[in-house]
């Protein structure tokens, strides 16, 4: 099947308008030697058959709705209003809002999103979104290097390893140097920075789950003239001191915990917020309030001179399509919960995670590696490789024990809990782990 409306008569009439009689003639200007390859693809399916096929593929997956895996993606509860509102065709099927007169819906929603991210991070300005947390980190670091005109970056090992890998890929391309400071006792070790360092990156809570005190790193970075890029889970900002209050210059992270499904790791969205002085270096779309010719309030894409479609090779970034709908899902989520609801979600997640950590750490052979305090993710040392334990748990219908890369130590696994887990869910995991390790 396809989704074209043309009847055979219409096709012929339209071809006749062009003096043609066959659709093949529309491709007469292509080299004949490469024309009409036979594509080897499966036979077409009707909608019913296609959805039946997709359901059979979905049945080969185990749901992670009660997973304890962590690692920047978690199963939080998504209020029904979020998908209901964001599946409206006007939001779903719009392009980037280039024509503001007929795009006020998306533009105002972005403006409100920018405001909420600025409030959560304690910084001045947020853009409209980036792809994910990892690429947001890369963009945040490139921004800091442009601003400081320096070419070295220092990153704490406490930053998510996949984020650091993406950062390394981006920095290699522009010839910048990446230095990593190892964790000591699960926390970022004190460091000093020389005058070649333009960006200093830490994550709080860090990858192993620990809440860091970033004061000394931030002070040392600023003393050397570097900017601080602060990676954080936006849900943690419901309770924890925001990056702006600690003195960070740039905050980045992944927005999945805010009203987005896990989606096997994508789509999600990356957020980035900065201090005012960095505004002209910010990549991606920005929406500004303004007035129309009749004096009515409205919204437009602003400061496009930073962007690729205007500046081409001199743009601040190549980004064009970002993750707009995912970011707007976060905005609806935040609007539906409000400040108290968001704090309640975060508090419930913290309480469940601390209860789970206490129960798991009491089992023989399991050791809590993450120093206290921690938020809602934590790391345990297991008596066996984490991937093996994860596989054994999965056979029992339990999704837990994210393997932590060996650079952090042997047999480490990341766990998390959210407000979505009941006490029974916690007990099931505990029983499952006892069985697996017996």
């Amino acid at each position, binding site marked *: 099947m*396809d989704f074209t409306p043309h009847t055979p008569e219409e096709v012929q009439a*339209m071809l006749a308008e062009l003096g043609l009689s066959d659709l093949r003639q529309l*491709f007469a200007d*292509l080299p004949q030697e490469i024309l009409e*390859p*036979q*594509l080897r693809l499966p036979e*077409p399916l009707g*909608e019913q058959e296609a*959805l039946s096929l*997709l359901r059979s*593929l979905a049945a080969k*997956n185990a*749901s992670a*709705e009660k*997973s304890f895996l962590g690692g920047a993606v978690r*199963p939080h509860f998504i*209020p029904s*209003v979020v998908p209901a509102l964001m599946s409206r065709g*006007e*939001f*779903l*099927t*719009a*392009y980037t809002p280039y024509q503001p*007169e*007929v795009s006020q*819906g*998306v533009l*105002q929603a972005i403006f409100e999103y920018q405001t909420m991210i600025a409030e959560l991070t304690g910084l001045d*300005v947020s853009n409209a979104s980036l*792809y994910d947390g990892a690429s947001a980190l890369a963009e945040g670091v490139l921004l800091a290097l442009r601003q400081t005109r320096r070419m070295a970056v220092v990153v704490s090992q406490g930053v998510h390893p996949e984020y650091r890998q993406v950062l390394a890929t981006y920095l290699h*391309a522009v010839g910048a140097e990446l230095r990593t400071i190892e964790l000591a006792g699960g926390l970022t070790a004190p460091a000093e920075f020389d005058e070649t360092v333009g960006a200093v990156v830490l994550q709080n809570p860090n990858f192993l789950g620990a809440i860091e*005190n970033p004061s000394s790193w931030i002070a040392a970075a600023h003393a050397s003239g570097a900017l601080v890029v602060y990676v954080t889970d936006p849900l943690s900002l*419901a309770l924890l*001191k925001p990056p702006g209050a600690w003195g960070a210059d740039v905050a980045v992270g992944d927005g999945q915990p805010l009203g987005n499904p896990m989606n*096997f790791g*994508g*789509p999600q969205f990356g957020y980035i917020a900065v201090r005012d002085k960095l505004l002209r270096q910010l990549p991606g779309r920005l929406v*500004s309030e*303004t007035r129309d010719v009749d004096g*009515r*309030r409205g919204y437009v894409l602003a*400061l496009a001179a930073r962007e690729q479609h205007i500046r081409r*090779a001199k743009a601040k970034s*190549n980004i*064009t399509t970002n993750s707009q709908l995912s970011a707007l899902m976060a905005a*609806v989520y935040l*609007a*539906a919960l*409000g400040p108290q*609801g968001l704090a*309640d979600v975060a*508090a*419930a997640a*913290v*309480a469940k995670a601390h209860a789970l950590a206490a129960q798991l750490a009491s089992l023989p052979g399991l050791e809590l590696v993450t120093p206290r305090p921690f938020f809602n993710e934590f790391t345990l040392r297991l008596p066996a490789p984490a991937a093996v334990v994860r*596989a054994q748990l*999965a056979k029992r219908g339990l999704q837990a024990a994210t393997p932590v890369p060996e650079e952090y130590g042997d047999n480490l696994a990341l766990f998390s809990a959210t*407000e979505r887990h009941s006490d029974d869910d916690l007990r099931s995991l505990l029983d499952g782990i006892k069985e697996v390790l017996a």
Partner: protein
Amino acid sequence: MKGDFPTLFERSRSGRRGTRPPSVGDVDLAAMLGADNMRSEPARLPELDELSVVRHYTNLSRRQVGVDTSFYPLGSCTMKYNPRASEAAAALFTELHPYQDPESVQGALQIIYELQEYLAEITGMDAVTLQPAAGAHGELTGMMLIRAYHESRGEGEQRRVVLVPDSAHGSNPASSMMAGFVVREIPSGADGEVDLNELRAALGPEVAAIMLTNPNTLGLFERKILELIDAAHQQGVQLYYDGANLNAIMGWARPGDMGFDVIHLNLHKTFSTPHGGGGPGSGPVGAKAHLAPFLPVPTVKREGERYLFDYDRPQTIGRMRSFYGNFGVMVRAYTYIRMLGAAGLKRSSALAVLNANYLRKKLKDAGYIIPHDRLCKHEFVAQPPAGLHALDVAKALLDYGYHPPTIYFPLIVKEALMIEPTETESQETLDEYVTVMAEIARRGQEDPDWISHTPYSTPVRRLDEVSANRHPRLRWKPEE
């Protein structure tokens, strides 16, 4: 002022509650988190009841147009119908975690693997990564592959220049820059195609790659493409295909067969996943065998009946995104390809090209100028009749309920109206559009004052972009 559409923050009332999460009773957060680490005051988020949230966004949506509401012939953006079956399919896969045991996500891995294979087949490439999150992200990935390839041959320092036609999408030079290259522009010939002589003259040992889209942004197929690619390959230059315009040629020709070495696709254009007001998209990259060792990790491979992640690429450029890319978008594209099959894709491209040529002919009859008036592919570039500006035509279209074409792009045509109708529009929609375009041209020429002040009927009228750029207001603040 009166009549302004309120923001969420203006609708907020202190103490009002919406969704209430499950209660956990009294917990000592300061003890668990450390008092010094806690926020001193709550973030100033709006406080709303649930109905207010629903009304706010529902009414915002009524101030927004999309493919679902109106004809949206935005050039180079492929605003075709987004099948709801693809949405239903994606909803089956939302509760998967990227760090699940791979044995527990075999269905998801099968989709990734098969989509890699389908896209390789459609484009004529040897290997595909689905990791890039959008088209420009795919461009960056592809250009990094080329860089790594030249480095592996000891030519990394020498080959630093990327040639880009002056008609190229702006993301092409921006992506080249981010991949560490220097960009040199190649002028288009009078026929709107790359000037082969100019290109030959620009080739040399310092050139790493040429980025092209074919058909190009004028909607014209580069007829000398085989000759052009051959000339470049003889000089050791790699060919990059910007897949933004692939909707023109699916099943009719493959970039791989033309000789391109690397390609990115936009699943949110060609494979009909929704644009979402600016994403999320997906920008898979296909590569010929000689570039495959450099692809980002992981890809998904098949061993017997099992699917697994493949991290074994010692020469990889690294990782471009966390996890595996925008999987939810991949499911939609997979569903679309399974529904259409080879025949449906080929017919879709043919009808996209038919619609574009039909509209080109009809608009010419209606007085619009077609600077390159020959067989086009999925899109074409027109100019307004004498005395009219592209911007004014675009704004007038808003009053008639249409989304305008892309305007002032490509840069090589003055007052450009870049029009891409797509295959999912009917003949009567195109005819009605032409009638409106003719009406706008006639009325605009008779009454310049009328057209220069359009639109009149939209939720807001022309907005003051100058002051928004001089004094941006990027977040809501209470009136002082």
